[in-house]
């Protein structure tokens, strides 16, 4: 694995609790592959479950980009967040 192919993934909200870490570096070509790599790293969330998260790529919601086909470049920053819904 080449170091410069890595993207930084930050977890926020319930995902931070689930993965028991705030940040991880993963090699992936796109968001879909990133979800699969995260599942291989820790099966706490399946790729299907991760599709219900809010995913920001360099501060932009991937829903405004190419959704789960959005391509990743070395040193990209991905944030995976869970919205709260209680009151």
């Amino acid at each position, binding site marked *: 694995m080449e170091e410069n192919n890595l993207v930084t993934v930050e977890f926020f*909200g319930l995902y931070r609790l689930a993965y028991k870490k705030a940040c991880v570096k993963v090699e992936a070509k796109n968001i879909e592959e990133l979800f699969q790599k995260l599942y291989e790293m820790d099966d706490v969330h399946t790729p299907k479950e991760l599709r*219900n998260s809010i995913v920001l790529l360099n*501060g932009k919601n991937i*829903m405004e980009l190419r959704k789960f086909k959005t391509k990743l470049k070395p040193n990209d920053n991905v944030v995976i967040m869970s919205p709260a819904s209680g*009151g």
Partner: protein
Amino acid sequence: MLDFNEAVKDKVIAIIGCGGLGGNIAHLFARLNPKKIIVFDGDEFSLSNLNRQLCATKNTIGKKKVEVLEERLLACSNSEIETHPIFFTEKEIPLLESVDLILDATDNVRSRFVIEKAGKKHKIPVVHGAINGLFGQVAIIYPGDKTFEKLYPDKQEKEIQKTYSFAPSLIASIQVAEAAKYFAKEQELKPYEVLFIDMLSMDIKKVNI
């Protein structure tokens, strides 16, 4: 010099939900003395509310949340208080005709889409807040914005983690601050900006969703 009392003195606000968030919001907003506060909640206090809901005491268990809240608010505010001991549904949207701003303090995704619709119908903003365990978020939904479609794309209810007294207090405080700043036209959150707060690590992110 900012004067939030002046900014809200002629305003009517509605608080949907009088649980952890709503009870805190109502107490905080009442002390700003808006013209009128309208509250909705069909629930009664129960033992499980004691850990985080301001008006839940050993003496109020079994009583209607809005009735207990009304008594508390009248004791600390000059605002007129209007109570609705019912849950907010599509049927209640016309009741918000005179309202200038809605504070979302409900505890489920389904009701939030109804609240967003009410804001659009009456052309008024909704100050959204939600908590889950030690996490929470705040946003202002301007009329016509589809913020909830971005926050809850699957429209499914979420797994709820145990929460504690300080979590709704913090999120409610920020909601009231954003509402007051909205009325004062002062640096309030912009459309689709969401403030996410992790109280465990005290990591705060303002993101454009």
